[in-house]
C-alpha cells in the first residue's frame, strides 16, 4: 500500500483484449499468455463488455449484484437509477465517492495511477450496463452524446 509512483509504467503487451468475459473455466485460467489481460496500450480496444468484466466487476461483481461490507457497492442489476443514461455516464466519467474517475484526460496528475476510457468506451459500457443484468433499456448512448457531458479535470499543475 505504499509505492505509488514507485511502480514502473504499465507494460506494453502485444495481444489485444479478447471479447469474452473473464472465463471461470480452469483451462482458460491456466493459460500463460497475456491474452486475457488489458494494458495501457491495448485498453483503447476494449468494448463495453470487456470493460465491465475487467474493471467494473471488481466492485460491482460478476452479475452486477453489488456487495455489502462495512459499506456497499451499488447493485447494478435492476437498479432504477440506470433509467438515466446521463447519471450512469457521469458516474463513469467523474467517479462517485470512492469510485475513481475514468473520464479524465490522459496524462493528468493524480496521487495514483489513472485509467482512461474514451467517450466511445464510456458510451459502450453504459449501454452494456443498461442492457444486461436484467436491465432492458432500449435507448443507446453514442460517443458524441457522452462528449457533450462535463468531463472531470483532476488536477492543475501539481
Amino acid at each position, binding site marked *: 500500500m505504499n509505492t505509488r*509512483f514507485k511502480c514502473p509504467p504499465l507494460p506494453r503487451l502485444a495481444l489485444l483484449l479478447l471479447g469474452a468475459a473473464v472465463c471461470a473455466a480452469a483451462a482458460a485460467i491456466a493459460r500463460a499468455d497475456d491474452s486475457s489481460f488489458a494494458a495501457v496500450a491495448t485498453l483503447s480496444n476494449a468494448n463495453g463488455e470487456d470493460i465491465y468484466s475487467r474493471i467494473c466487476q471488481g466492485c460491482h461483481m460478476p452479475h452486477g449484484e453489488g456487495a455489502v461490507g462495512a459499506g456497499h457497492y451499488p447493485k447494478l442489476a435492476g437498479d432504477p437509477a440506470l433509467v438515466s443514461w446521463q447519471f450512469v455516464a457521469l458516474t463513469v466519467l467523474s467517479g462517485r465517492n470512492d469510485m475513481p474517475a475514468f473520464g479524465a484526460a490522459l496524462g493528468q496528475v*493524480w496521487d495514483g495511477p489513472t485509467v482512461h476510457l474514451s467517450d466511445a468506451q464510456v458510451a459502450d459500457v453504459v449501454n452494456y450496463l443498461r442492457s444486461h443484468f436484467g436491465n432492458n433499456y432500449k435507448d443507446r448512448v453514442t460517443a458524441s452524446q457522452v462528449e457533450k457531458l462535463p468531463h472531470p479535470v*483532476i488536477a492543475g499543475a501539481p
Partner: protein
Amino acid sequence: MDSIADSSSLSRRQLLRMIGITAGNAAMYQAMSSLGFAAESPYRGPVDLQGTPAGASVLILGAGMAGMTAAYELRNAGYQVQVLEFNGRAGGRNWSLRGGDTYTELGGFTQHCQFDKDLYINPGPWRIPYHHRGMLGYCKRLGVPLEAFVQVNYNAYLHNSQAFGGKPRRYREVKADYQGHVAELLAKATHQSALDASVSKEDQERLLESLRDWGALDRNFAYLAGAASSDRRGYAKEPGGGLTARPVYSEPVALGDLLDSKLWLNIASGDSYDMQTALFQPVGGMGRVGEAFGRELGPLIRYNARVIDIHQDGQGVSATYEDTGKPGSRLTARANWCLCTIPLSILSQIPMNVGPAMAAAIAAVPYASAVKVGLQFKRRFWEEDDHIYGGITYTDLPIANIGYPNTGYHSAGKGVLLGAYIWGLHAMEFTSMTPEERVQKAVDYGSQIHPQYRSEFDNGVAVAWHRSPFTMGCYGMWSSDTRARHYDDLCQIDQRILLAGEHASFIGGWQEGAVTSSLDAIQRLHQRVVAQGSKA
C-alpha cells in the same frame, strides 16, 4: 533491437536524451513532493496531553493505526475512550495473513490460508522507513521487535518480457552498466571540451576523477570488461580459493541494449526517500503492530461493530452500530467527542450530520486499486538456486513485483513469497478475478522469471483491496486540485467530530500518515476540550 554498439559515435543529442532521463526523474520527484509524497514525518516524539477534564470522553471509530494511536494516547491522558471496529481483529490494513487464517472478501469469495506455521504475507503495508518515526516509536513502546526490510537486493532481478529474450537481469548488472556507460559518456564529453562552457577546467579534472570512481571506469575512462566493472556487476566466473581461484571478468551489456530494455526504470527504486535503507518490518509480520495495540487497549475496543449512523448534537456524538454477529441489531455508543478514522470510501456512505464543507471533502477522494498475492512454495528456491535473500524483483508483467521474504533465511521446508504487488489498471483486472484465478495468474507470470514456480508451487492467497469489506479500496487518492479544495475541510473539527487516517495526511497510503494525522487530530481536540473545561 537497435544497438548503439560503438558508443564513441553517440551524438550530443543522444547524450542529452540520457541526461533528460535524469531530469525527468528530478521533475517527477518535485511533482511527488508537492503532492505530499516523499514528505518527512512530522512526528516529534510522544504527545503530552495535560489537564484533561474529569469525565471527558471520546468515541473512536475504527481500530486501525489512526484509531488505536488515538485510543492509546487519549486513554493515557485520562479520557474515557471507546473504540468501535468493524473487523473481528485490531489493525485494519495493518494485517498479516497466516496459515490457518480465513478471509472472506466482498462477493463472498472465501480463502483459507494454507501457509505453513510462521509463514505469512502482509496484504497491506509491509515496510517502515527509518524516518517514519511515529510508527517506529509505537513499535518500540509496544515492544514489537523489528528486523531489516530489504528494499534493494543487488542480486534480485529486473525483468522486461520484451528485452533480452525475456530473461531477467540481476539488479547489480543493470545498475553497474547504466552507471558505467553514463560515466564514460560524460568523461568523453569532458575530454571533447563539450562541457567547457559549464564546468571550469579545475572542476573538469575532479569530475573526471569522480566519474572514474562512480562509474567503475578503467584508466582510459572506458567502461569495459575488467576488474573495475566486474567488481560492480559481478563476474563471469567468481574469484575463489586454491587452484580454481582465478576470476573471469564479465562482459557489460551494451548501452543501446540497456536503454532499449527499459530496465533502467527501476534502478532508482531504493533512492526515493520512502525507500531508502534502512527500512524495517516487524518480526512475524506487519500485523504484529496492530495485534500489540489491540492487546494494549483490550476491552476498550468493541469488535464486529458496523457503524450505520453518526449523529452529533450540542452535548455529544452518538454512533449507531450493528453487531455483525447479530444481523439487524442496533446498538448505540455515545461520547462527548468523536474521532472517526473510517476510510472515506465507507464514511462517504454513512449518514453523519457534519457541515457541507467536510461532507464535500469526504466525497471527493476516490480509492486506489491494489492487489497482493502470497505464494507458498515447497522450498526456498530463490535462495537455494538463485541466491536471492530478501528484496524485490521488478517486472513489466502484470504482477509488477516479486517480494522475497526478508526473514527465515535458509529455513528448511516451505517458503512464502509475495508473488504480485499491483496498482492501477492491472490491479483492477486482478480484482475482477476470483482469488483462485489471481493466484493462478501470479504463478503463470512469475514462472517466466523463476521457472521453478511450475514444480515448486504449493498454495496461495490473493487480496484485492477494492474487495476488502473493511476498506473498499487501498488508500485515498488525492490530486493537487482536490487537496487545495478539500484537504483542510477534511481535517478541521466539525463541532464535535474530527477525522484521522492516512486519508487525512500528506503521507497517503503509509501507516505513518495514519499515525501523524491521528496525533495532530487529538492534540487539536485536546486543546478544544481543555478550553471548554469540564463542560466538554
